[in-house]
């Protein structure tokens, strides 16, 4: 039993819904009590979908438990088939139905419906949403993919994008464009947008592009093993990663088409002198492993930030994040408890958080700006405009997104110079954010008993701009402790500043 307030991932059947909802021609029968239908609103509200997810819930109630819930599965499966006439059906149990052990997959197969019936085993008390996506996609592919000859032109499949994915809609378009410029045509994009007939055609492609390892890796591996299709290992998020991805595809295919970089702006935007103020800004990264790993490279190599903390919530992908952390001299934070993440961020006192919507709220309560780089998704992660993360346009989008929460270049200097101006001070915050600085809602960590701040030093500390004040406080206290100083004076503050200066 684990007490949880907010979760990064939903249950595995929500993952299976993301697959079914992204696809066409598929219907999902979920053995579940009333109330589990809340998951529909994730798609209709957060993603603003104009269709209901293709899901039928058996909706058993307490009074059914003594009777025959198995019969309810049979009836619901038949009725759903009759009404929706799908090309294939997906069947699974949610957490409560799993306890009933009705074997919905077996029951539905016994109905002998005239379409493939694919049963999923989703262990709700062990696994989570990403597993559900990965497993549903794998089982659908295993059931439907047909051995066949490779297509005449060089084609590939895009694997991994789903409904409710973080910027999947626009990543597909961006990656499709890159591939087309290299000379690779698209065979199938799956699961998003694919029908069961499209899944059957997956083996016609020459290779697979694994867009999101979290949701497509099992399928990519299975296709490699069973149908001899290699898959790409580079996720093209960031300038360097996109160039590496292009090279990988050229290597795989022997094609030499090179995507133009005319629209790529990140390198110059980052190199131009206005961006000097970004140098060495301390950032904390947290999210799903793929987005964290790619963001780490962008943050360090393409933005010139310093990474002061890194971690991911999906334990299945902890290994590469641990390795990356070691390379940076850090210890990776692998947890799905957002209170742990909050504590780690409070401890690290970064100047910018690159995280999920959870970290955005943590940032709000700690007074630290945050840009969102990863699922879990929120209605704000489905912008009306084109906003990919992948490819060259994705790099441009990322530059803008990450810089936006910060106080910009000269404004930062002016705030430092005139901290006590009655209108233009750090309580007013970045001028492009409507004049309100994020104010820490949480009191700073209590001081060790044997150190106190003298009033004038405390006053001086308030003149340090808010985005580095927490760090200055912590460093000064650590310095005082180290030197055995019990009273922090203005001198102690500046001694500490000199001590920690790079």
């Amino acid at each position, binding site marked *: *039993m684990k007490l949880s307030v907010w979760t990064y991932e939903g249950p595995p059947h929500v993952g299976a819904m993301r697959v079914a909802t992204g696809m066409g021609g598929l219907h999902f029968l979920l053995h579940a*009590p*009333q*109330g589990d239908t809340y998951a529909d609103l994730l798609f209709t509200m957060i993603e603003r979908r104009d269709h209901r997810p293709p899901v039928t819930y058996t909706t058993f109630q307490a009074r*059914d438990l003594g009777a025959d819930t198995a019969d309810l599965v049979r009836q619901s499966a038949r009725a759903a088939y009759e009404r929706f006439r799908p090309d294939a059906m997906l069947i699974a149990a949610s957490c409560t139905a799993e306890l009933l052990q009705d074997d919905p997959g077996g029951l539905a197969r016994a109905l002998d419906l005239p379409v493939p019936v694919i049963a999923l085993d989703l262990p709700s*008390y062990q696994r989570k949403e990403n597993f559900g996506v990965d497993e549903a996609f794998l089982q659908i592919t295993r059931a439907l993919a047909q051995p066949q000859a490779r297509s005449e032109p060089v084609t590939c499949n895009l694997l991994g994008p789903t409904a409710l994915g973080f910027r999947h809609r626009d990543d597909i378009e961006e990656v499709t464009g890159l591939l087309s410029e290299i000379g690779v045509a698209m065979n199938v994009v799956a699961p998003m947008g694919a029908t069961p007939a499209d899944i059957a055609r997956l083996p016609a492609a020459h290779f697979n592009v694994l867009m999101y390892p979290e949701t497509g890796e099992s399928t990519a591996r299975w296709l490699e093993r069973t149908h001899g299709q290699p898959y790409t290992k580079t996720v093209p998020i960031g300038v360097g990663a996109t160039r590496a991805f292009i090279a990988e595809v050229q290597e795989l295919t022997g094609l030499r088409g090179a995507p133009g970089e005319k629209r790529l702006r990140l390198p110059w935007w980052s190199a131009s002198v206005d961006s000097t103020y970004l140098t060495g800004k301390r950032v904390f990264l947290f999210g799903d492993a793929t987005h964290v790993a790619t963001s780490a490279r962008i943050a360090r190599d393409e933005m010139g930030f310093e990474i002061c903390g890194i971690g991911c919530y999906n334990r299945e992908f902890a290994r590469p994040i641990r390795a990356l952390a070691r390379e940076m001299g850090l210890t990776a934070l692998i947890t799905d408890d957002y209170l742990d993440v909050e504590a780690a961020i409070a401890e690290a006192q970064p100047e910018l958080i690159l995280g999920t919507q959870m970290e955005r709220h943590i940032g709000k309560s700690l007074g630290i700006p945050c840009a969102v780089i990863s699922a879990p998704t929120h209605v704000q992660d489905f912008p009306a405009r084109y906003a990919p993360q992948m490819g060259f346009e994705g790099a441009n989008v990322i530059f803008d997104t990450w810089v936006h929460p910060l106080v910009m270049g000269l404004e930062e200097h002016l705030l430092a110079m005139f901290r006590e101006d009655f209108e233009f001070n750090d309580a007013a915050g970045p001028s492009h954010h409507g004049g309100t600085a994020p104010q820490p809602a949480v009191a700073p960590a209590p001081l060790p008993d044997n150190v106190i701040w003298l009033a004038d030093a405390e006053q001086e500390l308030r003149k340090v701009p808010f985005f580095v004040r927490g760090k200055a406080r912590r460093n000064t206290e650590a310095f005082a402790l180290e030197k055995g100083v019990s009273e922090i004076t203005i001198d102690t503050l500046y001694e500490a500043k000199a001590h920690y200066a790079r």
Partner: protein
Amino acid sequence: MSAAAPGPGCTRTPVLRERGQHEVFCGLTSIIWLHRKMQDAFFLVVGSRTCAHLLQSAAGVMIFAEPRFGTAILEESDLAGLTDSHDALDAEVARLLARRPDIRQLFLVGSCPSEVIKLDLARAAERLSALHGPHVQVINYSGSGIETTFTQGEDTCLAALAPTLPEAGDTPGLVIAGALPDVVEDQMLRLLSDLGIEDVGLLPGRTRDNRPPLGPNTRFALTQPFLGETHGALIRRGAQPIAAPMPFGADGTTEWLWAIAREFGVPRDRFEAVTDAPRKRAERAIAARADDLAGRSVFFFPDSQLELPLARFLTRECGMRAVEIGTPYLHRAILAPDLAALAPGPRLAEGQDVERQLDRARAARADLTVCGLGLANPLEAEGLVTKWAIELVFTPVHFYEQAGDLAELFARPLRRKVRLRFEAAS
């Protein structure tokens, strides 16, 4: 103006009872407002990752002040041995209470999985009350989807509180049951006070020390139509119910107040003096939206059990025509005054088979379709104008001063439909 005569209205309208897929929330969802209403209470759901995911998704946004609710997520090991899961629960509760010493009421909320594995939370509540009492009282109720729908979670919570309320003395008292926004509650208490009815008990109280006393000399009225079990639990404590239509709109509020005033011997002229000005304000506010609503048809999908009283408000006070009124559960004893005041015509439906109901809604093509969040955008995409029902539960809508706001909730989608234009500008 008088309390609705026990005339027919929709009293004898046959009810279409359906079972099939229910597109509704489970009772856990009511924790979203209950945990803000009761300021020293914590709601600990004993359930699965799905329960936790529902709670953070249901409100549409995350409420990021540290919420006074959480989910003890059952894991594989808890399913293996129930003894161990009780130990694990005790440990989680001890940790929680140590971290939150301000908590004085702890609700152990049952869920679908906890009920299916027969985890005895009533026994756990007794054990934990003995352990952490008297400072903390531990109470159990069910918010599970196999037993409760959306607002029924508030009902089972308040019904579980009823036996724990202190005994009232001999003086006649009044208890009002139903969680209301603080501002609305204050308006209601002001009105009752102006009528000369003081010391009104509120269920739920804002804190444990504000629990209303209860006994044979207590009369009680409901502000929400979904409090069926609470109604029964209060009667079992000897309290006497006051039947009234729900206090929505000018008429509903007046009739609700008059039903109470009569019980407490308030003279008619005093009643008129107190209610005249706010009633006229409410009527004016409703009239301001009448152009958008009058003559339009409305179709209700089942959601919160507010559907029937709201249909009464929309048809009687706003001039709308109800086509179908779906409700998760129709409690006849509580809704008798509302049913009587509802003109015959609409189809009444209890329970749900969402696919069939969608067929009926598409055939009816009402001017306004009131439905849940899972259906609203898909129906809009089909060209219907919708009002998402959850907003009716999350917005102050009761009593005179909110009557205009209530009408506005229904009028706004209709006005928006007219306002938006995307054809080439000329």
